[in-house]
């Protein structure tokens, strides 16, 4: 989520139901579909679901909902929408009476200040970021997930990462305090005859907080690294040759604080101020043995032109949002690093960029792209082999209704790029969650992660109130939807901030951060688009930690189910004949019963041979995968 339409949605949400006689509702009508473009499908089962906060209609395919954990009391203004707490909270916000707001909507009120945001995982723990702090859950039994700790520490957006006994958190808003206080900075009346107190405050915190989570019930703040623009998102970077430190790439997108508050910060355009805190990212070095000594070690000008030294050298080339006008890129919104291939993909407002991070402390830009259909480059994911990059466009900032029947399916969509051996990005196609959503549903591409089905490139992704969707981008030119889950809008008439912020696969389940409702937990179920073997093969990948923007290559054990998943795919692609597939399946079944690997060796050699002559590269990889598993199966 980013700045622009947060206010749009949040304000319209509050406003729409409060103000009688103003706009009929808080939504914007879709403009006509531009000529030659395709909109969303209004006949999809996800279109026009029943609205509701906790009783909304649902539609799903290939995804089963297991549980919803509502936001804890400490993170919502009123738990009982008719109780006195609610009235009190409303009055604190300057709203004379809760009566002005329909009961069903009261719990979602005050959305943004208490919005759920990004997720990180470690062992059996899930860390759910929130503009107001972080909630930590026990997911050892996913369907019976339990809240362990609510950590209050306001400052938005609460982007979260974990590494060993450390937890990192992004803070960007001016109410962020070093001491995690919830009072912000109350306006102070100067004493009579005295000048007003300065806005600059040493107690303010905007940057990356570092917590020790050795005791999960008592996260302890051990470090806090201030940055000039705060931290909208951050990315944890491990250095292969440096086990004593980790690095944090900080993406700041908001205003630059004054030098009086943080020495060295200054605003301005490059022509008037070459030291401007814009047009850069910040890199924090975290000494693992002494995290309290973490500090910013570099602020590389990654948008510069090395030939001329111009620091604002990247422009968006004119996206649909600015009607052919170029704007300079002065910030990254999010960066995904993939250490195994030494690259990072930056989603940087007007551009998608590629960084060489072989030295994490000195990222070097090696390519950049833009796209006329893109409005705001928001996030990025690599395919597991690092040969594709999927970027997202957060057109309208996340709070606009951007999946209406008349919204083009190439605006606010994923853009899939091939990443060649020359380390250049080449555009292949777009993917957008296909179902038309109503005008009261904020919907646009948002955060997702790779689903580790071997032999396919699958990504599960959040689309705000457009729900979650799994896209298969194995064929970069022809992405297809594999599974989905969606709810009806929070409200039938007005756009209330809500929906899935992040939807991530972790060790066999999908977890989704629902901005207004809470934490959703799902599992995959087989359909004609995904088989049980493929789901089971995905579950063989077990991670001890997952920070999605710090991507790691998935590796599969030599389990027979992995070979079975490849066979299902070869059946689908017709990469093997029915008779051949039957032969493999029979042999695998026999081996599963006998637990003897011997008879599979011959088939392994056959698969290997077949792989060498396969016409399709994906099928060749699947056959090679079968050869590998059958050659040395693990029972």
């Amino acid at each position, binding site marked *: 989520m980013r*700045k622009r339409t*947060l*206010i*749009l949605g*949040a*304000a319209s949400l*509050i*406003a729409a139901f*409060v*103000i009688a006689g*103003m706009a009929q509702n*808080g939504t914007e009508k879709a403009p006509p579909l531009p000529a030659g473009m395709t909109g969303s499908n209004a006949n999809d089962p996800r279109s026009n679901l029943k609205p509701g906060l906790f009783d909304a209609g649902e539609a799903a395919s290939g995804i089963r909902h297991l549980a919803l954990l509502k936001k*804890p*009391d*400490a993170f919502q*203004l009123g738990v009982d929408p008719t109780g006195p707490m609610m009235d009190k*909270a409303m009055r*604190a*916000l*300057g709203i004379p009476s809760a009566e002005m707001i329909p009961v069903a909507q009261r719990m979602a009120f*005050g959305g*943004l*200040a*208490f*919005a759920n945001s990004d997720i990180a995982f470690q062992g059996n723990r899930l860390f759910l970021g929130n*503009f*107001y702090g972080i909630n930590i859950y026990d997911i050892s039994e996913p369907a019976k997930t339990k809240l*362990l*700790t*609510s*950590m*209050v520490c306001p400052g*938005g957006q609460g982007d979260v990462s974990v590494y060993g006994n450390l937890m990192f958190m992004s803070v960007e*808003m*001016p*109410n962020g305090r070093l*001491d*995690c*206080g919830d009072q912000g*900075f*109350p306006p*102070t009346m100067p004493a009579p005859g005295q000048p*007003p107190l*300065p*806005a600059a*405050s040493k107690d303010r915190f905007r940057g990356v907080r570092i*917590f020790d989570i050795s005791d999960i*019930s008592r*996260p302890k*703040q*051990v*470090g806090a690294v201030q940055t000039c623009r705060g931290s909208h998102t951050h990315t944890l970077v491990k250095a292969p040759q440096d086990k004593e430190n980790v690095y944090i790439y900080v993406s700041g*997108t*908001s*205003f630059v*604080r004054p030098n009086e508050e943080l020495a060295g910060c200054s605003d301005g355009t490059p022509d008037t101020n070459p030291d401007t805190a814009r047009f850069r990212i910040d890199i924090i070095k975290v000494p693992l043995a002494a995290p*309290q000594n973490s500090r910013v070690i570099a602020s590389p000008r990654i948008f510069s032109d090395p030939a001329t030294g111009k620091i604002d050298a990247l422009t968006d080339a004119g996206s649909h949002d600015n*009607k052919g*006008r*170029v704007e300079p890129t002065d910030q990254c919104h999010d960066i995904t690093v993939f250490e195994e291939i030494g690259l990072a993909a930056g989603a940087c407002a007007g551009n998608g960029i590629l960084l060489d991070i072989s030295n994490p402390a000195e990222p070097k830009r090696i390519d950049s792209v833009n796209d006329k259909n893109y409005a705001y480059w928001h996030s990025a994911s690599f395919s597991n082999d690092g040969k594709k990059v999927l970027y997202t466009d957060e057109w309208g900032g996340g709070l606009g209704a951007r999946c209406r029947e008349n919204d083009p399916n190439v605006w606010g969509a994923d853009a899939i790029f091939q990443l060649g051996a020359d380390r250049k990005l080449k555009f292949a196609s777009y993917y957008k969650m296909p179902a038309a959503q109503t005008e009261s549903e904020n919907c646009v591409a948002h955060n997702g992660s790779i689903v580790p089905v071997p032999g396919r490139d699958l990504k599960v992704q959040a689309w705000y109130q457009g729900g979650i969707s799994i896209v298969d981008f194995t064929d970069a030119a022809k992405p297809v939807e594999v599974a989905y889950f969606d709810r009806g809008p929070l409200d039938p008439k007005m756009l209330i901030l809500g929906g899935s912020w992040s939807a991530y696969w972790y060790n066999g389940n999908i977890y989704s951060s629902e901005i207004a409702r809470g934490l959703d937990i799902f599992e995959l179920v087989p359909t004609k688009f995904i088989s049980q073997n493929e789901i089971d093969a995905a579950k063989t990948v077990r991670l001890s930690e997952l920070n999605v923007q710090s991507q790691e290559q998935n590796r599969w054990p030599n389990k027979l189910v992995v070979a079975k998943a490849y066979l299902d795919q070869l059946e689908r692609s017709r990469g093997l004949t029915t008779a051949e597939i039957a032969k493999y399946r029979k042999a695998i079944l026999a081996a599963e019963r006998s637990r003897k690997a011997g008879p599979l060796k011959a088939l392994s050699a056959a698969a290997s041979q077949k792989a060498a002559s396969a016409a399709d590269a994906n099928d060749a990889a699947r056959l090679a995968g079968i050869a590998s598993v059958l050659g040395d199966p693990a029972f």
Partner: protein
Amino acid sequence: MNAMTRGILFRTVFFLFFALFPAFAALAQSGPVVVRPGAPGQPTEVLAEGTRPRAVEVTAKDVEFMQGMIMHHAQAVEMTALIEERTDNADLRLLGARISQTQAAEIEQMKRWLAVRGFPAEMDMSSMGGDHSHHMGGHMMPGMLTKAQMDRLRRSKGKEFDRLFLEGMIQHHKGALVMVDDLFGTPGAGQDAELFNFATDIDTSQRGEIRIMREMLERSAGKKE
């Protein structure tokens, strides 16, 4: 009960208490806990059960910013309305349409933000103090064009209009940046989540438009030579 049995009883109770203490402690901790960390290096505090969050106060400056920005935006919309009859410059017409559309929508957002918090969309002039008649021309917000500047813009046509419009709108947009700076530079202001995001976006988008307009001015100046 003799001394010995008392002693045994005491020891038994004593033993049981310590033997079972971890179990009790664990029981007491089995529910979720609400904590608030301290500043770096400081201990983490356990908050009382039933703790509710606190929303940051809306300040007079926040309200003034929104009311002032409505006035400020209104002039931009007024300026773009002049384009239709005064220039054929396609780039400028496109730019004007965009500014008009964006700022009109933002005016609605600001009005809603104010209304739900019980504030009027217009600034209360009586609170400005002293003789405020000279404020009433609508040029009290930074960067807003004076009446003379607006009249001159209205009277111009073609290339002259294009130049005055771009110069005027750059001045106008720069004023919005000053207002955002002023907001975040005021103690206690700009902490409301929605307001923070709104002001941040104004800053980003108007900065971009200023650059676009500067380039348009430079291009047209270059052509003349």
